[in-house]
């Protein structure tokens, strides 16, 4: 029978990919000798670690950082979103497209660009004669850099809510005589609050999970967070596995709680607001308002996107970094070096592209089977599958890496992917799975059950229903999700750094190492290539996804 086979296939795949790493972290945190297959000395690692001052400091720092970034991102995003909801359609779309671009720059590359720009003897100092070194390497500096990268998440969610509210309930409120300010505080704000909080929680989670920026900026002014502390546990000898698992557990718990909150809030928002019906046409803006828009949106775009991108591009075209910003220092040498076929740069590009391609193909295949099993086959146990399939949403990349190390770096396995590129593939599969799962399951849930039922009654079996009905209807969205997985995989940093076997570099690892060794401009050149590849594919994936609707 196909149904039990599908169920077995999807549950065993999910258990290996998602269940093992999470379970390993839990077990190691509680039983530090579990790898010797012994339950001896339970909690002997957990309790001392929890009392450890460094751990407390790192946890506190992580929370403080994530809260501040969320707050600053919201302060930037909400006024913009409120303005955006009043724009005529075309202008609004241009603004939206502009604020998609920060996502195309991986956060660690953004941070490296800010360093290059603001630090002592950076581009700003070379042009303007002063630097912002002290600000950049401070708590406020780091919060600003991260908030500038993440605010679009809040902007998009709240802008769409404001426009729905504005169109429907705002008009209703005005009909009953409310003033603009009253309408904002009585209608718009309370109704947008769940969406604001729910997107804020996503920013919170992404900040908690982020490795690159705290490692690049935070390390220089002594600001350890949970993720960087875990990295330290693995880089300093002796490696502290139980310590790392306790930290990972804290990380997972914070992210999990925040993610649950996000889920609740976004569900609540969807149920409280009924579907928008009428689309009000907004009148064109007055010339003065237009100037204001250009200044505010353009200015922010210039700072959040333009400056880092320009820095990356200029650095890539510099012959030597010490040569500084001078016309005679421009050359294609650095970029060209990446494409020398036996060079490290080219090898890193090929590794990343291969891994990304396999990650895309496999995640889409797994997601298709899992989604069909969870959404359409109503057998017992699919609730557990559903839980496993979206669990990676709330598991930070660092925790996945730790979990994979704890799982596979054990002597009892006869064969293990550890220390081979397959461990990277496993990590990518776990991290990327939620993207195709979410996209395909949304699409499948929108297909009425009657499409399947009609086929069954017409004499089709499960396999025919999948092949003749569901696959033809779902392949475009699957393809789109594959592109998105591919794009995000090509820039993945944290699990790659933790898991790459000796002699294997992905693009992100290459960039990181180049900076460590001081070859800033060759790191920047690789960043430029990454942004172009992953950015182009992300844009393509989004476009495909949009074309589906």
């Amino acid at each position: 029978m196909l149904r039990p086979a599908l169920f077995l296939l999807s549950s065993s795949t999910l258990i290996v990919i998602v269940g093992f790493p999470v379970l390993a972290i839990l077990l190691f945190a509680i039983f530090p000798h579990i790898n010797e297959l012994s339950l001896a000395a339970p909690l002997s690692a957990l309790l001392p670690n929890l009392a450890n001052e460094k751990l407390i400091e790192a946890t506190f720092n992580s929370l403080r950082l994530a809260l501040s970034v969320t707050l600053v991102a919201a302060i930037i995003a909400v006024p913009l979103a409120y303005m955006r909801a009043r724009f005529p359609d075309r202008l609004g779309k241009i603004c939206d497209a502009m604020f998609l671009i920060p996502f195309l720059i991986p956060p660690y590359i953004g941070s490296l660009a800010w360093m290059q720009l603001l630090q002592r003897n950076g581009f700003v100092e070379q042009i303007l004669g002063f630097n912002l070194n002290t600000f950049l390497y401070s708590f406020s500096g780091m919060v600003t850099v991260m908030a500038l990268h993440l605010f679009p998440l809040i902007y998009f969610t709240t802008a769409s809510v404001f426009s729905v509210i504005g169109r429907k309930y705002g008009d209703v409120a005005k009909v009953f005589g409310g003033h603009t300010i009253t309408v904002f505080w009585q209608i718009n704000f309370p109704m947008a609050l769940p969406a604001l909080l729910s997107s804020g929680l996503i920013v919170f989670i992404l900040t908690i999970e982020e490795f690159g920026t705290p490692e690049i900026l935070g390390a220089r002014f002594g600001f350890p967070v949970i993720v960087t502390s875990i990295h330290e546990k693995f880089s300093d000898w002796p490696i502290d596995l139980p310590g790392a698992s306790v930290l990972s557990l804290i990380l997972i718990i914070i992210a999990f709680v925040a993610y649950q909150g996000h889920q609740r809030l976004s569900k609540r928002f969807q149920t409280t607001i009924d579907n928008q019906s009428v689309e009000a046409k907004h009148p064109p803006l007055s010339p003065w308002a237009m100037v204001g828009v250009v200044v505010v949106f353009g200015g922010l775009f210039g700072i959040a996107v333009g400056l880092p991108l320009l820095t990356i591009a200029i650095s890539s075209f510099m012959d030597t970094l010490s040569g500084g910003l001078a016309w005679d220092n421009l050359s294609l040498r650095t970029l060209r070096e990446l494409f020398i076929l036996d060079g490290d740069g080219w090898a890193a590009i090929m590794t990343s592209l291969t891994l990304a391609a396999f990650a895309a193909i496999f995640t889409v295949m797994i997601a298709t089977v899992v989604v069909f099993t969870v959404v359409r086959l109503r057998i017992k146990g699919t609730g557990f599958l559903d839980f496993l399939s979206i669990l990676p949403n709330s598991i930070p990349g660092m925790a996945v890496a730790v979990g994979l190390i704890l799982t596979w770096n054990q002597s009892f396995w006869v064969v293990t992917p550890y220390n081979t590129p397959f461990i990277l593939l496993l990590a990518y599969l776990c991290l990327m799975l939620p993207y195709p799962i979410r996209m395909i399951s949304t699409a499948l849930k929108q297909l009425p059950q009657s499409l399947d039922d009609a086929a069954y009654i017409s004499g089709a079996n499960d396999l025919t229903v999948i092949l003749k009905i569901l696959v033809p209807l779902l392949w475009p969205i699957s393809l789109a999700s594959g592109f998105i997985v591919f794009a995000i995989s090509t820039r993945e940093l944290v699990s790659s750094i933790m898991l790459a076997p000796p002699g294997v570099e992905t693009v992100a690892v290459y960039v990181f190492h180049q900076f460590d060794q001081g070859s800033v401009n060759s790191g920047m050149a690789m960043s430029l290539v990454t942004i172009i590849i992953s950015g182009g594919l992300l844009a393509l994936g989004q476009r495909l996804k949009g074309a589906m609707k």
Partner: protein
Amino acid sequence: MSILSLHNISKSFGDEVVLNNISLDVAAGSFITLLGPSGCGKTTLLRIIAGLERPDLGEIHAKKMTFVNVARNVFLPPQKRKLGFVFQDYGLWPHMTVAENVAFPLKMAKASPQDVKKRVGEVLDAVRLAQHADKLPEKLSGGQKQRVSIARALAAKPDLILFDEPLSNLDANLREDLGRDIQVLSKQLGLTCINVTHDRREAQILSDQIALMKDGVIHQLGQPHDLFRNPRDVWAARFLDVGNILPVGIIQIDVPEHFVMVPRKAFRLVEADQGLSATATNCMFIEDRFEVTADLQGHEVKLFSNQPIGQEQSIGLKVDLADILPLSHGAC
């Protein structure tokens, strides 16, 4: 001869009993409607007949095969039951043309390409959609989509066709037209059909037999005229909206029942000082006469009138005793 018989079908979802020991015989060539309010179990019963849902208890036998026998652990999956099904939301596959949609059951039955082509042509002719064969469903109107769905259900010449509220997604005028078309088609082709609906009018148009369902049991079974003229109790009379339900005392007749059903047409308007005195509260012109709402000793009643009646006007009512029906309270 019965083409389908249900014995003691029961089904619960969790603690909620949806179907409670239902037995029903469906005669060949008949059109039977399961009529009832939402939550009465009618849709679940239809899905159990189709094999889309499994009963907890009971048996279903078709002409040549056993669909379900829970006690013997027999369950025939829907693809083997050789039925037609018309869905409320049409259930047309958006990536296939009209002809491909209709051809699907034939291809599943491994008909030869010539036979498929011929039969698709026949059924599309029967639902008057031959000229739309190569269109995608999205290009069709709601009524046309439902005709395609019907054509698909007819295609493989099933013994039995199931309809799940086939008219409820259509607007009022279309509903009437398509309903009559389905009725004519089913008689022409000698189809056996089971239909599910909460709409009295749809049930009246389509059915030879109506099974009125309430709380998971068949409350009353009969031909439409019988059911609507002789509702079993207060609940049935209310749901079927057959007339005014009043305490027996108001009409002053001597029957053991507590309630009496007075059809709208059984009230005759007389001078205000004659008959039962009432006060008109509303009056509107519907179809070809006025429908008057009046207050009769604290009870709202509806009746027909040829002349408009002013609001708050005192009226007298005579009751045509031949038309009234004493009602037991039932489980209401």
